[in-house]
């Protein structure tokens, strides 16, 4: 009855947004299958006359495979560190009554407000003194550290939803903290853990400033930097650049196709339940 009216509005709005999201993606795809002169001559909206894959081939030959690998290494390592360190931290924050823990929690809350740019100067100094300049480890460590506050917050939110009686029941049985953690807390906060996996992976994947300042050679270049350098070289070619953008999507696209549910659920979890 009265339901149909707002639906027209929603339907229209959703199509407008589809256009906003879709148009640049269309431009991107179409451009990558054209040669440079064709793209310049035909404009971004027209369909390719002479279909070519050269842009992709050229990109892959100019080192993008290496950049992929580097990004994957960074992403996996960052996720590893975060997943190893944050759940015990969140568990402590939720369950411990100690003063030290409160301080630590405050510290992490403060950490939310520390932009990674703010520490980039001393970070360079420290990483370079440690001999980690131009080394992926030097990118991984700070990236992981800066992914932690949000992850800690997300996970504590999830763990708080575990009701006290469950803890009670276990501790009544004389269970140690370790057992409580592994048998109660972890299983019940699986959704939260998958959220922090997705979130920290996203952070690492998007990482730009740390690699920009802390690495320099092609061997340590990550995809985001590859794209940036592509753009700032003299005489860049737009179809080639956009092909690189498409290529940069692939690893996440594969994750998206095969683990869409987990990825989407994970991201939904960022907001808590």
């Amino acid at each position, binding site marked *: 009855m009265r339901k149909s009216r707002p639906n027209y509005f929603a339907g229209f709005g959703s199509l407008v947004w589809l256009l906003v999201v879709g148009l640049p993606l269309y431009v991107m795809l179409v451009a990558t299958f054209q040669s440079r002169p064709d793209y*310049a001559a035909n404009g971004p909206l027209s369909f390719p006359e002479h279909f070519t894959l050269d842009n992709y081939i050229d990109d892959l030959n100019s080192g993008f495979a290496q950049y992929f690998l580097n990004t994957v290494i960074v992403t996996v390592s960052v996720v590893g560190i975060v997943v190893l360190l944050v759940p015990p931290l969140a568990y402590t924050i939720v369950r411990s009554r100690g003063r030290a823990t409160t301080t630590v929690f405050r510290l992490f809350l403060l950490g939310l407000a520390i932009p990674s740019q703010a520490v980039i100067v001393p970070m360079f100094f420290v990483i*370079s*003194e440690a001999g980690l300049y131009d080394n992926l*480890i030097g990118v991984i460590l700070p990236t992981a550290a800066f992914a932690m506050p949000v992850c800690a917050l997300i996970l504590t939110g999830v763990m708080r939803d575990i009701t006290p009686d469950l803890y009670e029941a276990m501790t009544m049985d004389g269970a140690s903290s370790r057992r409580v953690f592994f048998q109660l807390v972890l299983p019940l906060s699986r959704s939260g853990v998958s959220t922090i996996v997705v979130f920290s992976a996203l952070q690492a994947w998007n990482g730009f400033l740390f690699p920009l300042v802390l690495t320099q050679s092609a061997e340590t270049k990550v995809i985001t930097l590859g794209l940036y350098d592509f753009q700032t070289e003299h*005489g860049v070619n*737009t179809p080639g650049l956009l092909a690189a953008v498409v290529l940069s999507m692939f690893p996440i696209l594969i994750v998206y196709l095969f683990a869409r549910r987990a990825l989407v659920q994970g991201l939904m979890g960022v907001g808590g339940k």
Partner: protein
Amino acid sequence: MKQRARLSRTLVVGGAALALVLSLSGCGGDSDAAGDDTIHVLVYGDAANKVEKEIVATFNKTSKVKAVLDTIPGADYQAKLQTIINSKQAPDVFFNWGGGSIKPFVDAGLLLPLDPFIAKDPDLKAKFLPSVFNSAVVDGTSYGVPMRGTQPVLLFNNGKVLKKAGVEPPKTWDDLLAAVEALKADGVTPIALGGGDRWPTLMWFEYLYDRIAGPELFQKALDGDQDAWASPDSRKALSSIRELVDAGAFGTNFDSVKFTDQGSPTLLATGRAGFELMGSWEYSTQQDAHPEFAKSDLGYSTFPSVEGGKGDQANVVGNTNNYYSVLKKTKHPQAAAEFLKLMYSDQFVKAQLAIGNLPTTTNTEGFLDAAASPEFAKFQYDMVKAAPAFQLSWDQAYPQSAATAMYQSLQQFFNGSMDEDAFIKAMQALPTS
């Protein structure tokens, strides 16, 4: 050694402690044990690296100390260089633009004076065009040896577009203004400008200041004479720029166009613009992106003269050259010297010419026929050789710390959001060396 301030000690201690923790925790990178019999050569990463690789290979054939080539991609080169030059990662030999780009390093005592090398091997200086070599002389001491090529700024054009509008490459400022009107009437943007990159805008300032006030004015300003910017000549140059912009010479959206993403070169190549003021690399850019256009319709001329101006119309603006400088703390100064000697070898000159660069050695002239585009190479060589003055790009002549503010003011004056007085004030506020 200088006495360290207490503050720096705190920093060093804090940083070192953290660094130590890192190294102890087993994630420290490889130590510099391998650095004993190598010299690291750091260059700007781009297509010209091909030649640098060849030269390094040649050097390594005979030398016991091996050279290792490191590159940093274009836009970040200067920033990266300054961050690492006083750290463990510092190279032994590095690429630079001479002038203001190495001045801070000289002041910090980081660079090795090359005069002793030159005393032993006079060719290290004598084999280069003097005006070029002198750009890397700081306070009377030589700190750099030219490498790669000279990059004068030229007024490029699309011959077809000019013909259609009945326009010739301009010889005088008035010619240029007339050409602008004719091209506008013909429905094309008279001059393509990649204002989004900012440095293309700078080129218009450099040439107009040179033609109107002569190279002396800028030198005075650079030496700290604030009045130079407020002088009548300076104001005349500014009003000429205003006149050109207001005449619609660059269209209205130049600040959204970039050279670096092919925006402005494409305008020129596809006949949507008549001229572009650009460094000599425009030629290879066009050859790469629009080979047909580069072959048939790409024209070039020197910047027009300005009536009543003090600058010689043969003066040139641009990147004088790139240079190799040597760090004082290198363990192998002799090897570095040997390496530098390759910069005037026949192999070097031929290889540079083949990729479209124009070296400034005295033997270059003999190889010009072997250049990628002999006619263009000869035109540039004659132009540079005949130039009474070669104005180094302002952003490289000034200390690095001035560049950002300089770009901002240039862009704002150019697009009309800053007036003459505000611009003069902004330029006076720039830190000078």
